[in-house]
């Protein structure tokens, strides 16, 4: 298990790695570029981290408070189609959280409910209308978005204009690289995931030939970019790539390419249902190459869903938990989740649980006001959630959660994944 201190250390070292990546991205060595690099390239002219902005707008006054006896928490999730299992998992976890977090009555006799929007399908027009419905008709006090990076971007664009706090399960790093004060990410970004994966692949295992399989969509594209950066930062060869059409993935061709040119490891940056089919196909084809899954790929639809470090059962020797209280709460969550669904919760489901708990907590502290709820989110430090310890930094990232977990013979175990080792 990586302790919290280890998490912090890893995060610090990863930040250093990111800086190195920037230096490696110097312009072509023209005389002009060389001259500049000698004088000032070591220190970027400016960075969001050092010169960022917090929200200076209005809407904290009581005139902006949401009215009515029921306050809604918005949740965007895919509820039909190939990602239905992922969406259903988020809804189950969110409902459990709402039940748990509102055991104690809310101030002023208000009730809190979930307003769930179905984001299924590729039609952005549909998703936009769902977001508008949640924001304007349901007047949600905060909006929780799924792992879908595109829908998260659309949500944050609306949130930024209208003033709605967004808690996202999306790992798309670019959602928080904008200096928008309305968005907060619960899990590790693509950058953090790829950095720790790349370290394990290239440094710890010393591999040279890695195959990266991604979807031909926004999330696949940004994941590939992050993986390329992470490999480059370690001086490793760029991974070979296969890009799948998520609407009509050609698994036969993928397997043929793997047989023709066997990689030492495979990284999947795909939808969970596609990851499930690929992992199953690889197994059936007798390919035993280690497979790495992004958090998005390891959702409920992958059939491999698990909550890292959660107690799988009372006598599970591989399970690891934090302190006693956290362990009890997590065990209760996992147990109840299994009772309801028959499977283990994914990391995204655990984050959905935490997002609802954070929102209820924020409303208790700030009242029914979107801007004040946003302020409460910005103050979150060391929140011990089901998914781990949550701290939001100035950009809305949660930099403390970096886990790489191995599944072997139905047993989960922590891999080091720590660049310091």
């Amino acid at each position, binding site marked *: 298990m990586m302790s919290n201190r280890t998490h912090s250390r890893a995060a610090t070292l990863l930040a250093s790695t990111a800086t190195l990546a920037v230096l490696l991205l110097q312009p072509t060595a023209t005389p002009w570029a060389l001259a500049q690099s000698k004088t000032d390239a070591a220190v970027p002219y400016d960075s969001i981290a050092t010169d960022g902005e917090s929200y200076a707008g209005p809407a904290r006054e009581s005139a902006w408070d949401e009215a009515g006896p029921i306050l809604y928490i918005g949740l965007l999730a895919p509820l039909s189609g190939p990602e239905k299992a992922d969406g259903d998992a988020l809804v189950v976890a969110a409902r459990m959280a709402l039940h748990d977090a509102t055991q104690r009555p809310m101030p002023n006799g208000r009730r809190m409910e979930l307003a769930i929007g179905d984001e299924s399908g590729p039609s952005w027009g549909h998703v936009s209308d769902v977001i508008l419905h949640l924001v304007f008709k349901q007047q949600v006090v905060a909006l929780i978005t799924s792992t879908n990076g595109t829908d998260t971007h659309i949500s944050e*664009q609306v949130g930024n204009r209208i003033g709605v706090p967004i808690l996202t399960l999306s790992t798309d790093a670019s959602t928080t690289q904008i200096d928008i004060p309305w968005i907060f990410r619960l899990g590790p970004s693509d950058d953090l995931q790829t950095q720790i994966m790349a370290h394990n692949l290239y440094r710890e295992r010393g591999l040279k030939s890695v195959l990266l399989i991604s979807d031909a969509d926004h999330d696949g594209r940004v994941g590939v970019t992050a993986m390329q950066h992470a490999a480059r930062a370690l001086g490793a060869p760029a991974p070979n790539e296969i890009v799948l059409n998520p609407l009509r993935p050609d698994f036969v061709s993928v397997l043929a390419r793997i047989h023709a040119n066997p990689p030492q490891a495979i990284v999947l940056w795909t939808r969970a249902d596609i990851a499930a089919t690929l992992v199953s196909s690889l197994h059936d084809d007798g390919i035993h190459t280690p497979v790495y899954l992004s958090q998005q790929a390891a959702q409920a639809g992958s059939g491999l869903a698990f909550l890292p470090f959660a107690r799988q059962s009372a006598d599970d020797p591989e399970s690891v938990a934090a302190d006693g209280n956290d362990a009890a709460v997590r065990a209760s969550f996992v147990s109840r989740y299994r009772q309801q669904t028959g499977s283990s919760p994914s990391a995204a489901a655990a984050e959905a649980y935490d997002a609802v708990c954070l929102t209820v907590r924020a409303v208790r502290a700030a009242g029914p006001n979107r801007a004040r709820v946003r302020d409460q989110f910005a103050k979150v430090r060391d929140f011990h959630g089901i998914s781990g310890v949550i701290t939001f930094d100035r950009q809305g990232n949660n930099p403390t959660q970096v886990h790489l977990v191995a599944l072997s013979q139905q047993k989960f175990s922590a891999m080091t994944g720590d660049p310091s080792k």
Partner: protein
Amino acid sequence: MERTKAISRVRDLLCIVGLLILATGWATAQASSYYTKWINYTSANGFPPGEVYCVTVDGNRVWAGTGHGLVLLEDGRIKKIFTTKDGLSGMAVMSVAVDKQTGAVWIGTFGGLSRYSGGQFTNYTNLSSGLANDLVYGVAVQGQYVWVATTAGVNRFDTYTGSWQIFNESNAPFEEPWTYSISVGAEKVYFAVWGGGVLSYDLANHYWKPYTDPDGEMELVLYRNQGLIHNIVSSVSWNPDTKTFWASTYFGLSSYDGRNWHNYLKKDSGLISNFINAVKSRGDEVFACTQKGLSEFNTRTNTWVTYRPDPKTGRGEILITRPGGNKRHMESSTTLAHNYILNLDFQGDDIWVATANGLSHGIRKHSKVVAIPR
């Protein structure tokens, strides 16, 4: 011979000094003209409460898009507030453009696109027309065409034929299709793209050109005038007088004159905040609508002036930053309705400013302002 040369040099030098004195005096006179009179329209005087997302001037009429509908002002008086009950496609109005030839008003809302003409609304939505998406951030009229910035790409609507064209990552160099604003020039139309920088469309030759952040880093600016400062662009404004486009981001301000880029950050200019919702430029003036006030930059005098309410006194603060960083602080009795600025338009020498808590009409006066020592 040497003596003649020396006299000639002295004469040239005196000419230069004289010109410099004249230029400095003129610049000072220009810079000393400030917006010191503000008339505000808020819920206190019948205006819808909360944010004003956009403002468009059409002669003596002013259109203001709010979270509670579209407001029409005539000669400074609220004439009508249009809502969805009147036929508007959405309550949150993000942009307004007036067709100078037909008088039709095009309205971009969170709910689709509306056309207001002859007292009637005609609505265009994702399901009922070729509109790419119902989240409409920007709209602009260019001849017979109406350009629409949506979250799923750009539309061009031909008002003569009624046909729609859509531009997105499939047929144009969009890194992402999320389009936030439009500015029409004589030869090109410019688009601010969230995640995709600035795109221009050449009207004569029908080609697209992207302008993106050259360092490829979202969280860094590697060099000062490296190119576009950030790929998340909130707004773009073409200045026909200087042949320059200005792009606002949430991480600073950029300009490009066809040869050189110039970037402006809070730390090295008089810009009051790097978080800029919109930019508007004409002549030597550039207005940055920031979340901490309205910053005006005069490109000729290199002087910045920021207007914002003083939260302690309720009076107006005028912060002046001259070349070299010399700062001065002044005060006015009236001020903007709020320091969070979302949009702006010109009405002659006056400006109309959309703020997060009402609409403000700024009048530039040479009236006496009080210098406050800091």
